[in-house]
Structures are given as structure tokens and as C-alpha cells.
């Protein structure tokens, strides 16, 4: 029976890697996740054949079945019901659950040692403790990331001496964990303090990070959870967990790097200094010009008689659920012979590819969707750049003002289009709180209102021209 389980784990690990590989192409992606899903089910079923599961009576087995049923049911219902726009925070929460599970596995093993059980080797204890730290930080950190994206926490919070407190927490949990793991002498009280420290550190670590940086943070926590799972896999001598966890740990780290590269900010900058802390000179700067308002019918006429329109969606589009209306606008414009292209900034929305997913949901072909490098040279030849719900990613300050916190971030050159129409709900600054000079430019006109409603009016406007 043990051999059979080993074989199943071996196959599962291989299928996970193949599945991940298939997920990296749009053609095979769906097949990839289904394969991985089958591997997961088989591995779970096979684990019921493991005698360890039955080593302490039937009550444990009943609890296992109960926990699987309840956990799956909750996740199934929430994942089915959630709007596509809220997906990023759901990924954050499911990821946090994985981290929490890894930390809880470590907790069970460490509690056993604390209760006087036979101490495993130092390597096992060290990895169990490391996995506990990483998993717990990912758990509480992801919960904060969820709360921020869900709008439960709106402000970036900073205590006085925040960095100092974090450093103390970090050193404290490492020292306490290290002493317990190396000495092999685990005191229940210390264990409790240890887990409290790790959870608090996860919260304190995530609180000062701005919402705009959340994609990078979620990706980082995803990688961390993978790492924690890999370490607990070693503790439990489970090769499938070791391999799957480490594959996710490595790929997640790469993904995190790609994202912070797209924002042109070193990862350390994102994690250890929030946007707000770097302002001062940039915020005080005078903005030249004034914002000019435009009405939807006029904007519709500009677009209807253009030869090329580039649409730049941002998080605001996701919030307004405007993607379906955009698809309609694209259709009516194309019917008039207007060339419509979409420009997606790598960090538009709250995850890389967030916009692409929403546009695909609305049935917009992905050959109309362009990356930053591909579309930027085209702006000067476009009559209209339509910005909907994007802000920082089109702020020319990133090119011109070295004092600005976003200086150096590659942006979409909407200001270089002949005309720029910005759909915006109100007059406030963007997520980062930085004034957007694009809005004050001579060739920019502001269309104030809810994204979905305004696009609807644009559609009506274009249609009325016959």
C-alpha cells in the first residue's frame, strides 16, 4: 500500500509540473489546470490509504473528512459566486489559507515535541520552524491584502517607528524560532509567543504597503506559501509536497520579479517604503494648466471620426464593470472603420493580466490587446487615446520629474496621442495620491462620471451618427 501511495505522489508531482507548463500557453491552459486538478484529487484519495491517517482512531478520520467537506464547500461557493473583478483578493485569500495550513502542520509537529514526544532531528525542526514562520506570515499578510483590495482597509497604515517595530518583530521571531529549533527544547508558552509574533509580523509587514503594490505582494505571498509547503513536505517526508511547493516557490519568485520590474521599482522599495513616505517635494509642485471637461456626445464624435483609437483601461474599469460596454463601443467604432486597439500597462489593475482577463470576459479579441512596448510608438498616430479608470500608469510625471515617487516607471504615452479623453469618477488623485499632469494637459479632456454609464453614452453617441 505504501508503494502505491508513493507511486501516486510521484505521478501527481510530475502532472503538476506538466500542468503548470501547459498553463503557460493560452491554447493548452485549460487542459493544464484540469490535469493538475485530477492529480490533486488522486493524491488526496491515495492519502486515505496511508496507515498514518488511521493511527489514532476513527475520530481523526471523521474530522479529516469533515474538514475537507467544510473547507471545500466554503471555497467552492465563494469562488463560484465572486465577480471576476474581485478575483485578485480571492486569490490572496486562498493563497493565505495554504500558508495557514502549512503553518498549522508545523504547529501540530511542534506541539507534539512540546508535549514530550520524541524530538526529530535538528534539520527537521529547523525546516518545520522556517515553514511555520513563512506560512504564518503569508497567512496573516494575505488576510491584510484581501482586506485592502476588498476596501475593508482603505488607508496605508504606518505607526511611528514602523520599520523599527517590524525589525524587532522579525529578529524576535527568528531568534525565538531558532532557539527552539536548535535546542530541541520547546516550551508551550514560548511556542504560543512564537506564533503570535509571526502572525503580527505578517500584519505589520503588509499594512504600510499601498493598494497599487498589492499585485506584487500577493505574488510574493504565493511564492512564500509554496516555500512553506515545500519545507513542511520535508518534515512529513512527502516528496509531492516538496516538489510542488518548491516549483511554486521558484515560479512565484520569478513572477514577483517580473512584476516589480514592470513597475521599475526594486522589490525592496515596494516592500519597505510605501508611496506616501516619499512625497514632499513632488506633492507641493504646482501643476500648470487646468482640467477641461467634455460631454459624452462630443467625445463620441471625436472617436467616431478618428482613424485610430487606443483605449487604456485601468482598475477603475474593473470597479465600474465597464468591460462589456467597452466591447460594444469597440464594435460600433469598428463598424465605422475606426481602428481600435487596447493598451495594457503591465501593472494596470490589481494583478498582472487583470485587465486582459476582464477584456477577454467581455469577448474582446486578444489580438487587439497590446503590451506597453508594442503600443507606445503608436500613440502619436492615434487621434484619440481613451483612458478609463487608469491614472498612475499614464502620468507623464514618471518621465519628467525625478522627485516624483513614480519617477522612472514606464508609462503608456497617452499624452502623446493627438487627443486624450479621460473617463474619471471624480476629481481626486489616483491610488498613489500623486497629481496626474496628464489631466491638465492642453490636449486632454475630462469626461466625469461612472465608467460603465459613460461608455454607454459614448456608444449611444456613436450610434446616433448613423
Amino acid at each position: 500500500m505504501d508503494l502505491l501511495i508513493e507511486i501516486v505522489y510521484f505521478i501527481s508531482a510530475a502532472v503538476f509540473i506538466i500542468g503548470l507548463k501547459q498553463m503557460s500557453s493560452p491554447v493548452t491552459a485549460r487542459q493544464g489546470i484540469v490535469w493538475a486538478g485530477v492529480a490533486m484529487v488522486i493524491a488526496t484519495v491515495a492519502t486515505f490509504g496511508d496507515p498514518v491517517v488511521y493511527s489514532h482512531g476513527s475520530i481523526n478520520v471523521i474530522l479529516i473528512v469533515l474538514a475537507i467537506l467544510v473547507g471545500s464547500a466554503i471555497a467552492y461557493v465563494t469562488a463560484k459566486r465572486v465577480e471576476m473583478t474581485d478575483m485578485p483578493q480571492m486569490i490572496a485569500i486562498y493563497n493565505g489559507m495554504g500558508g495557514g495550513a502549512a503553518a498549522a502542520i508545523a504547529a501540530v509537529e511542534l506541539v507534539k515535541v512540546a508535549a514530550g514526544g520524541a524530538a526529530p532531528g535538528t534539520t527537521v525542526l529547523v525546516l518545520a520552524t522556517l515553514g511555520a514562520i513563512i506560512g504564518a506570515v503569508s497567512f496573516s499578510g494575505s488576510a491584510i491584502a484581501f482586506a485592502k483590495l476588498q476596501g475593508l482597509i482603505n488607508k496605508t497604515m504606518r505607526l511611528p517607528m514602523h520599520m523599527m517595530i517590524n525589525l524587532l518583530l522579525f529578529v524576535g521571531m527568528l531568534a525565538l524560532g531558532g532557539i527552539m529549533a536548535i535546542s530541541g527544547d520547546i516550551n508551550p508558552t514560548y511556542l504560543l509567543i512564537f506564533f503570535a509574533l509571526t502572525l503580527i509580523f505578517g500584519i505589520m509587514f503588509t499594512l504600510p504597503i499601498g493598494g497599487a503594490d498589492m499585485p506584487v505582494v500577493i505574488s510574493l505571498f504565493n511564492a512564500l506559501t509554496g516555500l512553506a509547503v515545500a519545507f513542511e513536505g520535508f518534515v512529513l517526508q512527502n516528496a509531492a509536497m516538496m516538489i510542488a511547493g518548491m516549483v511554486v516557490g521558484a515560479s512565484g519568485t520569478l513572477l514577483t520579479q517580473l512584476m516589480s520590474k514592470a513597475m521599475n521599482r526594486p522589490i525592496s522599495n515596494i516592500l519597505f517604503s510605501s508611496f506616501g513616505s516619499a512625497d514632499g517635494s513632488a506633492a507641493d509642485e504646482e501643476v500648470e494648466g487646468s482640467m477641461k471637461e467634455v460631454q459624452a456626445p462630443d467625445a463620441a464624435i471625436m472617436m467616431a471620426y478618428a482613424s485610430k483609437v487606443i483605449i487604456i483601461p485601468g482598475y477603475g474599469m474593473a470597479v465600474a464593470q465597464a468591460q462589456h460596454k467597452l466591447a460594444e463601443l469597440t464594435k460600433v467604432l469598428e463598424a465605422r472603420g475606426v481602428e481600435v486597439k487596447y493598451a495594457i500597462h503591465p501593472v494596470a489593475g490589481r494583478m498582472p493580466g487583470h485587465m486582459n482577463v476582464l477584456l477577454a470576459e467581455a469577448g474582446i479579441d486578444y489580438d487587439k490587446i497590446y503590451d506597453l512596448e508594442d503600443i507606445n510608438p503608436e500613440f502619436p498616430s492615434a487621434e484619440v487615446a481613451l483612458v478609463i479608470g487608469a491614472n498612475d500608469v499614464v502620468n507623464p510625471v514618471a518621465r519628467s520629474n525625478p522627485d516624483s515617487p513614480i519617477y522612472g516607471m514606464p508609462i503608456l504615452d497617452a499624452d502623446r496621442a493627438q487627443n486624450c479623453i479621460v473617463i474619471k469618477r471624480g476629481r481626486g488623485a489616483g491610488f498613489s495620491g500623486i497629481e496626474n499632469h496628464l489631466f491638465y494637459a492642453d490636449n486632454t479632456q475630462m469626461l466625469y462620471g461612472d465608467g460603465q454609464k459613460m461608455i454607454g453614452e459614448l456608444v449611444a453617441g456613436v450610434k446616433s451618427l448613423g
Partner: protein
Amino acid sequence: MIEGFTALYIFMLAAFTGYEVISRVPVILHTPLMSGSNFIHGIVVVGAMVALGHAETPVEMAIGFVAVLLAAGNAVGGYIATVRMLEMFQPKKGD
């Protein structure tokens, strides 16, 4: 038993594999892929089952129960989220 250096070799090879598999992914698939890899670390559920299986005291059983609950949520939630996102990329019939 997987010990010392054997474990290190497994970790190293798995890490390079993860790095290679991801490095050729188009940007449009980044979110589904993050979600997919989020699902894959849901394999933690088998570890959680073992942890709860050999839990002895009520405290251990309670923690083990939480472990399985969270892990199952990770796996199922990650799967559904990924499938829903990838469905968007399916060529629509009649289009």
C-alpha cells in the same frame, strides 16, 4: 527516507523547474498562472491530512482540523478561480 542532501537536490531541481516553466509565459496569462500555481500548493492538503491523522491530544486535533480545512479551501478555491479565469480565453462558439 528523504534526508539531508537528497532533500537539497530535490529542492534545487524543483526550483529550477519552476523557474524554467514560467519564464516563457505571455503577460495575458500571468493572473491565471498565479492562480494556477496557487492551486498547486494546495497539495498541502495531503500533509494536513497526515498531521490531523496522527494528532493525539485535543489541541493537536484542533490545529490539525484547521490545517485540513484551510488546505482544502486553498485547493478548491484555487481550482475554481483558475478555471473561471481560463474559461474567458476559450474561443467562443459562433463568434
